[in-house]
């Protein structure tokens, strides 16, 4: 099982981003997805910076993929998608059908988790269009993954979200700005103060969700460390790990050791529990509510 680092979902200061990926260059991870996928207003890291980070990671032996923004509303958003698509250096992850259309006919692009590929028939369409990898939706169950991959096109890879706060929803509205009674257009980049998203607890104090600009994540952390044999059996090739502000490299080390059999799944889970910003859940994989540990 290979490991992939998902695109950074949060808004971190430029120096923190550069420091983070300098560490990632030395970390046990095979593929690194780069780029801003949540909000086009964010500007700490420019597109050219992402390309430069990509070059450094590629020089360190990582496979680099540029991820396109998930929700496109304006012509400006489409320009960003076109720029990612037109980059001649790295593979591209499409996160909506507009990006898929622009990538159609090129080879080796990635059908991202927000494309809504839920069945073999839709997988066949993206494969015909030149995709060679599918990232499952976060709510994918074991049954769904096994079903979609049972008769997959030759050489087609499957990547499953395996660790991190679960990306659950996008909106036109910025929920971080809303907390501070600001409009999105004048948000003051409030999300930069929440490096793992802004926690939202229920009215009885239970951690529930995390707001990250226009995106809503789970407060708890998805963790499939104990499901590695089942993931392999279902046909998964790559485990996706979402960056967090602390301990990401440690998380990668634990999962690498677990994949290589050097660490038991029990010990891996125990280690990850101590490295995570929330409780560990795995319900989706088992066809249960995402906020459950099966």
């Amino acid at each position, binding site marked *: 099982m290979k490991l992939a680092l998902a695109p950074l979902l949060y808004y971190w200061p430029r120096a923190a981003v550069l420091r983070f990926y300098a560490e990632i260059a030395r970390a046990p991870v095979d593929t690194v997805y780069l780029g801003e996928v949540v909000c086009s207003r964010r500007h700490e890291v420019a597109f050219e910076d992402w390309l430069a980070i990509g070059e450094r990671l590629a020089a360190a032996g990582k496979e680099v993929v540029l991820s396109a923004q998930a929700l496109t509303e304006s012509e400006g958003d489409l320009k960003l998608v076109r720029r990612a698509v037109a980059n001649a250096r790295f593979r591209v992850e499409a996160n909506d059908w507009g990006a898929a*259309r622009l990538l159609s006919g090129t080879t080796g692009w990635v059908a991202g988790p927000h494309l809504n590929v839920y069945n073999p028939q839709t997988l066949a369409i993206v494969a015909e269009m030149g995709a060679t990898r599918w990232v499952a939706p976060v*709510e994918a169950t074991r049954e769904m993954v096994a079903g979609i991959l049972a008769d997959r096109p030759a050489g087609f890879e499957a990547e499953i979200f395996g660790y991190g706060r679960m990306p659950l929803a996008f909106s036109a509205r910025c929920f971080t700005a809303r907390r501070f009674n600001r409009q999105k257009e004048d948000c003051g980049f409030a999300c930069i103060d929440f490096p793992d998203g802004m926690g939202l607890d229920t009215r009885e104090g239970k951690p529930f969700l995390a707001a990250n600009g226009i995106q809503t994540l789970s407060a708890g952390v998805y963790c499939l460390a104990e499901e590695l044999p089942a993931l392999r059996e279902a046909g998964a090739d790559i485990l996706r790990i979402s960056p967090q502000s602390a301990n990401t490299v440690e998380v990668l080390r634990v999962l690498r050791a677990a994949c290589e059999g050097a660490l038991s799944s029990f010990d891996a889970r125990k280690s990850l529990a101590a490295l995570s910003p929330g409780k560990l859940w795995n319900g989706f994989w088992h066809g249960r509510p995402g906020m459950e540990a099966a």
Partner: protein
Amino acid sequence: MDLVCPAGGLPALKAAVDNGADWVYLGLRDDTNARNFPGLNFDGDALAAGLAYAHARGRKVLVAINTYPQAANWARWTAAVDRVAALGVDAIIVADAGLLRYASRAHPRLALHLSVQGSATSYEAINFFHERFGVQRAVLPRVLSLAQVELVARRTPVEIEVFGFGGLCVMVEGRCALSAYACGESPNTAGACSPAHAVRWRETPSGLESRLNGILIDRYAAGERAAYPTVCKGRYAAGNDTYYAFEEPASLNTLDFIPDFGRIGVRAVKIEGRQRSPAYVAQVTRVWREALDAWKAGSFSPRPAWTAALARHAEGGQTTLGAFSRPWK
């Protein structure tokens, strides 16, 4: 501009037709549609009767087959497409790319509408569905401003349908797993958001509590209007602030924008609410029919009676322009 109205059953379909809907949309009685609620929707007989009723009056019927099938249940979705095509529905509303391809090949004369659950927010995405599967109309997610809708309409040959009135998804349709996260069922896979079987109401000393699969979504003091506990309409605490973190309970109402919709080439407006009563369908349809007729006659100006009638059916008694209003974002 066509008026597209919801029907959760035959009485609602008749109410929509009788009050001036151009199209009525509905779903079959299973998880192939995104309003998979007990007691709602159409079996074969009801659909045949509804089609006869609508067609006899020159109206059209749309069937939503707009959830995402998986390998294990794929045949049930294609069977649904085959069944409604054979009955002679005027179009189907589909979200899944694979199912759109199936329908376009198996039933080349059946008109295809892209569901809002397909999450196509740009002309690039909509043109993908047009080029590949011949989609004729697309329902836009409730995320775009008027200028953005105009841009989409200008850059695609696909007819554009927008939401006019009803429950407001704050999250992009087709990209929201909040309900699955809380209770295991979401629109994409199960055709349900906050299904009734997972909802509990309880009077407590600190107020009326609404829970979804045990998770406290909100608690209401005496006199506060309670809302149905979808995750996005709950109150949560961020630091010391407890508030509607996503959206207050309110319904979308874009009636005032009818002239703008006409100017920018919107082809249809959709009323949300297949889960609502025939009385809701009748009254909301009538208001929108009158408003669209006034616009066609060149004499549109919002009437207080329309606003009042719609407010009576709005969630929390409030309406919003949603993403059509810049401050909302």
